[in-house]
């Protein structure tokens, strides 16, 4: 008895020692790996490579916009536009009231009492209590500061002077003088400057739509408002909505197309349904191959054949998922209960009826739930694939990011993508409950 206990005790102690060694070794291994990665990824150098000024521009731009007040120094003309966009240029008679202009002289009131004055080719930048900086545009740009501790960040050379304060930024070159003033929000989100509704407050717009005089005699204000919103030249809501539809369409066509392709293959690959062992082996290897090739490779090959667009994305999803569905479906088929099939057979059913009433009711819930799960995850994939094949919201997003200026659009698209994915998630969850559990 006592020897048995001693042996057991020794065994237990040995087990516990081994467990504690493992418990220490695993975190140590992970730590060692992370240290290796730290050097492999050159995280030390990251701090130098990181562009914090870019981060600041990005964050500021996501929630604010700037209005450009530009003087062409060769022709002496003035233009006021939002984000320097041609399509968002104010006409000379509707310039915002913080810009006072009378021919030669233009006074731009920035926030905090700061004033920039364009006086012909001369520019004055006034900061209250700190005096006025003077810039003269000639062969070179002469900068004259009132004091050495004038509170602005200044970047000056002979051909270009930039003065930045919290309220705005002034850039002067020989060709032009430009002042930027920052405002919170997303500019012209509902109506662009070409629309009669632009500049109205929400209440004014509603009042005009409900009770106002017809702005265009041949149609109602409501239809005008909707059409102006839809065709907004800056935000292009119509196109964006189309792009989202394209992305969902890619996911829809890809997922269900893959299910069509995979269904017969799954029967050929399932042990209990395969007509021959060799065929089963061949089909399974094909499915393995298709899954291994990966969406990226399919996407590249298909865009060569079909060119950019949503169809290419849909086909890439279709091919990739055929492999996954073939495997998942055949596993579900291998797990079917034989008894219902025998029961159906005992009533004299033929092969088709056996499948229809014995097999399909068993596997349908599994298939459907897989399908709906993939539909949701493919909405996300379609965004990524769209960025590569050039279709849908993914394309708009990458384009907006590549300009490195339209960050407010980037945040708008990100918001839309998240809403789209969450909506598809709830839709697929709702359908799953409805179709499978019959609630």
């Amino acid at each position: 008895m006592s020897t048995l206990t001693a042996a057991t005790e020794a065994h237990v102690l040995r087990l516990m020692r081994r467990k504690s060694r493992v418990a220490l070794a695993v975190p140590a291994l992970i730590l060692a790996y992370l240290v290796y990665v730290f050097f492999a990824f050159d995280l030390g150098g990251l701090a130098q490579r990181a562009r914090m000024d870019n981060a600041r521009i990005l964050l500021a731009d996501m929630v604010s916009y700037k209005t450009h007040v530009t003087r062409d120094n060769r022709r002496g003309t003035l233009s006021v536009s939002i984000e320097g966009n041609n399509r968002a240029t104010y006409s000379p008679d509707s310039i915002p009231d913080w810009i006072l202009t009378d021919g030669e002289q233009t006074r731009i009131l920035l926030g905090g009492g700061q004033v920039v004055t364009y006086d012909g080719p001369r520019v004055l930048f006034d900061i209250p209590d700190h005096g006025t900086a003077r810039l003269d545009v000639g062969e070179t740009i002469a900068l004259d500061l009132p004091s050495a501790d004038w509170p602005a960040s200044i970047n000056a050379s002979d051909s270009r002077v930039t003065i930045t304060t919290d309220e705005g930024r002034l850039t002067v070159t020989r060709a032009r003088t430009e002042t930027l003033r920052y405002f919170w929000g997303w500019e012209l989100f509902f109506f662009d400057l070409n629309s009669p509704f632009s500049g109205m407050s929400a209440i004014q717009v509603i009042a005009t739509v409900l009770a106002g005089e017809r702005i265009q005699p041949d149609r109602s204000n409501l239809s005008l408002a909707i059409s102006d919103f839809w065709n907004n030249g800056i935000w292009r809501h119509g196109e964006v909505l189309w792009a989202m539809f394209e992305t969902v369409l890619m996911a829809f066509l890809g997922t269900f197309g893959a299910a069509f392709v995979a269904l017969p293959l799954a029967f050929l690959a399932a042990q209990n349904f395969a007509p021959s062992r060799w065929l089963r082996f061949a089909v399974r290897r094909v499915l393995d191959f298709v899954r291994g090739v990966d969406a990226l490779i399919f996407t590249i090959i298909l865009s060569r054949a079909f060119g950019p667009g949503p169809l290419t994305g849909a086909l890439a999803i279709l091919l990739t998922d055929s492999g996954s569905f073939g495997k998942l479906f055949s596993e579900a088929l291998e797990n079917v209960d034989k008894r219902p099939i025998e029961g159906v057979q005992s009533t004299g059913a033929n092969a088709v009826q056996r499948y229809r009433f014995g097999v399909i009711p068993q596997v349908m819930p599994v298939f459907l739930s897989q399908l709906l799960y993939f539909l949701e995850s493919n909405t996300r994939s379609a965004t990524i694939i769209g960025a590569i094949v050039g279709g849908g919201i993914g394309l708009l997003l990458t384009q907006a990011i590549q300009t490195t200026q339209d960050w407010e659009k980037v945040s708008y698209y990100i918001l839309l993508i998240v809403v789209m994915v969450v909506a598809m998630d709830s839709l697929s969850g709702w359908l799953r409950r409805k179709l499978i559990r019959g609630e």
Partner: protein
Amino acid sequence: MSAPALAHVQTEYLALTRRRRIYGGLLLVVFVAMFISGFRIADSRNAGSFWQGLHQIGDFPADLIREAVEKAANLPGHMIRAFPALVETLNIALVATLLGCILGLLLSLAATRGLAYWPRLVPVARRVSDVFRAIPEIVIALVLIFVLGGGPVPAVIAIAIHTAGAMGKLFSEVNENVDLKPVEGLASVGANWSQRMWLGVIPQVAPNYMSYSLLRLEINIRASAILGFVGAGGIGYELRNAMTFGQGKFDQAAAIFLLLFATIVLVDQLSASLRHRLTHGAPA
């Protein structure tokens, strides 16, 4: 049961079946109509049409294979040159999976009723993991590339965030089925929250967690290759460069295709056998 009642039940049952068949048929018709019209819309908005492209679908792979066979001697060299990039892609996936799963674990604990440290924040933790899960990797990667410059770090962060969201949901589903008795036992001897989780919950859920994490690793390797293609370094970046060289340099692309394919198959097999061991126990 009397005969008329039986007949009544029969007619009712047949009517019900007929109705269900009509509904099912209608649903099918609507679905097929949606599918066909969707296909036609996608086809009309594509640069090349489906039926035309179908003939050309084999052209590029044929070119690729022909060149790869012609210059078969170059393939090993190209593969060796692309190997560091492959290691980078694998590292991105592994680090992102590791970080994402740790973050997902914390999120899942915070999102499970009965385990959460702050029970009031359970819905918040759930929404956070929903949002993390909804953001496609490419969005975060592209924005971070602008700030941090190209390279592996933006890809790691992007994949890790998405992984954390996905794992937060999957892990919390596992947590819902945890037996709370060990946790209560630990609480009764005065264990604090982290001890209760580490000693009472984790041992129960670890095999499931591991299995999900391995599956996620497979997914993340593919994601990491794709992110490389849009500029985040690794094998995807090499592939993109090889593709832009165009005709005459396809042997390089073919080598990378082969390398990527072999890696994905290898990792899938490895992870499948590991997962099999986790769920069915080690072979004796």
